[in-house]
C-alpha cells in the first residue's frame, strides 16, 4: 500500500473524493486559510501554543484505559478505550476548536462561526472562543435547539449567540448550509470553525490533523502497555472526525485494521438510518465530493439516528477514500444496539459513553467473538454520555 497518509493532494483530493465545491465568493478565503494553516503547521510557536492549551487547558493526553471487565465479559480480545470523554467539554471536539480558533487569532479574524448538531461542537467552539476572547455565533437546526436545550444554554453562558435554523429539515445539514451562507456573506471578517473532517479543502485535512492527536497518543500509549501495535481500531463515524483522528497516525501500519461504525438508526432496511458509507453513493454536499445519502435524482436524504452527532447524510471525503481503497472497513449498528452498548459499558466499567461512541462499542459484540485473547482492540470513546441523559430517560 502506498503512502496513504500523504493525502490529500494540493487541491484537497483524496483519490476522486474531496476537493472544493463551493461558490466562488469563498474560494479565495479557502486559499488564504490553506496557506495560513500550512504555515501554522510548520510554525513551532503555533504548535507550542496549541500543545500548551491541549495539555494545560483541555487535559491532554487523555488516558488509554484497559477495560478489564468489558474484556472479560466479551470473552475475546483485550479492549482498550481511548478516553476522549475526559477531555474538556466532554468530547474530542475541543482538539479541533482550539486549533482552529488559535489559527483564527493568528489570521486576525475575531468573529468565529460554527454549525452544530447535538451541540457538542457548538459548545467546544464557544469554549475556545471564550478562552481566546473571540466573538462567536453558532447555527443550530431549530429541531436540535428544541431537543438539546441544555447545550444551547451552555453556549449562551459562554457568551455565544445561538441562531436557530428553520430552513429545510431544521437539523445539522441545514445548520451547515446556514453557516456557509453566513461565511459567504461575511467572509472578509469571519472564520468558519467547521466541526468535522468534511467540507471544502482544507477542512478535511486540517480537522484531521488537529484530531490526529488522538491516534498519536494512543499509539505511544499502546506501545507502552503492550509493546506492540493494536490489531484493530474501532471508532464511530458521522462526519468522521474522531475516527480519522484515531486512524490517521496508523494508516501506514498495514497490520492495524480499522473499522468505522456508522449509525444504522432503525435499520438498514428502513430509510431511517445514516449509514452513508454502506448505503450511500458518491455525491457533492457542503463543499466536497464524498459518499452521500441521496435520492436517485440527487436530492439529499433526510436521516435518522438516536445519536444527534451521527445524524448526517454525508461523511468526510477521506473516509470515502479509505473505503474505496479498502484500507478501512465501514459497518453499522442500530439505535437499539447502541443503547445496549451504552448500558453495558455503564454497568461494567462505570463509564457513561456518548450515544455516538456507544455505536463503536456496540460493534465489539460482533467483532469480539471472531478474535482471540491475544489480540488487541483500541476503541475511541469519543465523548461522555451526560448530554444524552434525556434520551436515555425516554427510552428507559
Amino acid at each position: 500500500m502506498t503512502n496513504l497518509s500523504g493525502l490529500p493532494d494540493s487541491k484537497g483530493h483524496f483519490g476522486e473524493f474531496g476537493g472544493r465545491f463551493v461558490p466562488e465568493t469563498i474560494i479565495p478565503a479557502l486559499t488564504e486559510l490553506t496557506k495560513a494553516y500550512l504555515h501554522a503547521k510548520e510554525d513551532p510557536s503555533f504548535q507550542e501554543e496549541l500543545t500548551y492549551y491541549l495539555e494545560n487547558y483541555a487535559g491532554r493526553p487523555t488516558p488509554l484505559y484497559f477495560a478489564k471487565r468489558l474484556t472479560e465479559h466479551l470473552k475475546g480480545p483485550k479492549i482498550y478505550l481511548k478516553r476522549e470523554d475526559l477531555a474538556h467539554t466532554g468530547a474530542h471536539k475541543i482538539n479541533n476548536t482550539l486549533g482552529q480558533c488559535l489559527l483564527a487569532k493568528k489570521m486576525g479574524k475575531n468573529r468565529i462561526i460554527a454549525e452544530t448538531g447535538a451541540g457538542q461542537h457548538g459548545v467546544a467552539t464557544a469554549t475556545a472562543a471564550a478562552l481566546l476572547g473571540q466573538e462567536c455565533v453558532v447555527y443550530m437546526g431549530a429541531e436540535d435547539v428544541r431537543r438539546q436545550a441544555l447545550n444551547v444554554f451552555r453556549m449562551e453562558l459562554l457568551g455565544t449567540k445561538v441562531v436557530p435554523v428553520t430552513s429545510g429539515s431544521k437539523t445539522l445539514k441545514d445548520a451547515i448550509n446556514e453557516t456557509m451562507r453566513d461565511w459567504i456573506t461575511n467572509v472578509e471578517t469571519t472564520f468558519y470553525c467547521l466541526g468535522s473532517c468534511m467540507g471544502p479543502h482544507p477542512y478535511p485535512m486540517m480537522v484531521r490533523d488537529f484530531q490526529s492527536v488522538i491516534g498519536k497518543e494512543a499509539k505511544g500509549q499502546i506501545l507502552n502497555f503492550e509493546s506492540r501495535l493494536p490489531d484493530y481500531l474501532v471508532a464511530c463515524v458521522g462526519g468522521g472526525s474522531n475516527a480519522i483522528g484515531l486512524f490517521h497516525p496508523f494508516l501506514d501500519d498495514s497490520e492495524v485494521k480499522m473499522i468505522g461504525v456508522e449509525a444504522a438508526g432503525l435499520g438498514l432496511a428502513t430509510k431511517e438510518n445514516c449509514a452513508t458509507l454502506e448505503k450511500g453513493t458518491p455525491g457533492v454536499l457542503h463543499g466536497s465530493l464524498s459518499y452521500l445519502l441521496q435520492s436517485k435524482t440527487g436530492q439529499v436524504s433526510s436521516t435518522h439516528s438516536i445519536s444527534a452527532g451521527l445524524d448526517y447524510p454525508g461523511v468526510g471525503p477521506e473516509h470515502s477514500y479509505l473505503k474505496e481503497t479498502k484500507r478501512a472497513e465501514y459497518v453499522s449498528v442500530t439505535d437499539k444496539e447502541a443503547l445496549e452498548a451504552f448500558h453495558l459499558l455503564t454497568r461494567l466499567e462505570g463509564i457513561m459513553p456518548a450515544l455516538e461512541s456507544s455505536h463503536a462499542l456496540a460493534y465489539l459484540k460482533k467483532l469480539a467473538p471472531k478474535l482471540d485473547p491475544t489480540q488487541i482492540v483500541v476503541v475511541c470513546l469519543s465523548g461522555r454520555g451526560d448530554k444524552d441523559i434525556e434520551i436515555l430517560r425516554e427510552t428507559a
Partner: protein
Amino acid sequence: MSRISEKFKGLRENNKKALIAYITAGDPTLPLTEKLVYALLKSGADIIELGIPFSDPLADGPIIQASHQRALKKNVSLADVFALVKKIRNKTEIPLIFMLSYNLMFRYGTQKFFKDAQEFGLDGVIVPDLPPDEWTPVKRSAVPIDMIFLAAPTSTSERLELISDASKGFIYLVSLTGITGKRATVSNAAFSLVEKMRKITDKPLAVGFGISGPKQAKAVVQYADGVIVGSAIVDIIARNPKAPAPKVGKFVASLRRAIDSVK
C-alpha cells in the same frame, strides 16, 4: 455561434443590454413554469435561467430556497425540466440556461447531462458550487453548450483570468459578497468587478445577485452588458401562486423599459 453569444452580439449591435430572468423550474408547477417562460419572453427578457430545485442550495437566500422547496414538493427533477426545455424549444429560440447545484448534474451523469442538453436545445449552464478549478470531468472543448462561471468581488485577478478563460457565452459577475436575495441598493463592488473584468476579457459581462427592481437594473447596465434578476421575480411568483404570469410580466416589462432607457 451559440444562441447566447448571438443574443449578446445582436444586442451589442443595437446598442442594447441584456435582461436575464431567473425562475425556479416547477415553482409553483411545471405547466406554470412553461407559461412563465412565455410571459418573460413577451415582456422583454432576452435570456431565461431555469433553476433546478435542490434540497440544499448553498448560494441561495431565503426567497430562492423556499421556491426550491415548493418545486421539490411537486417532485420536479432534472429530467422533468429537460422535457420542458424540449417543449419550449419547439416554440421559441430564446436562449435557455440551467442554474443548478453540481450534485444534480453529477448524479444525472455529466456526459448524459451534456448529451441531453444538446439534444433538447439547452444553451448554457451555471453551476454555482462548481468553480473552474474542479471542472475536469469532460474536456472543455467537448462541452456542446456554454458553461458560465461566476466571478465574485472577492476573486483575485489570477482567479478572474481563470474564470474568464473557462466561461463561454457570458460571465456571471456576483454583485456582492453574499448570497442571492433582494437588496435595497446595488453594491459598489459590482462596478469595480466589471472594471477589473473588462481589462481581462471582451466576453459579455452580466451582473446578478441583489438586483431587485428597475432602478437597480438601470444602474447596472450603465456599465455591464446585462443584468440578472432572480429573487425579485421568484418573490412575485410566491405571492401569486395561482396565476403568477400577469404580475411577473408587468414587473419584467418595467425592468425592460428601465434598461432600454439607458443610451
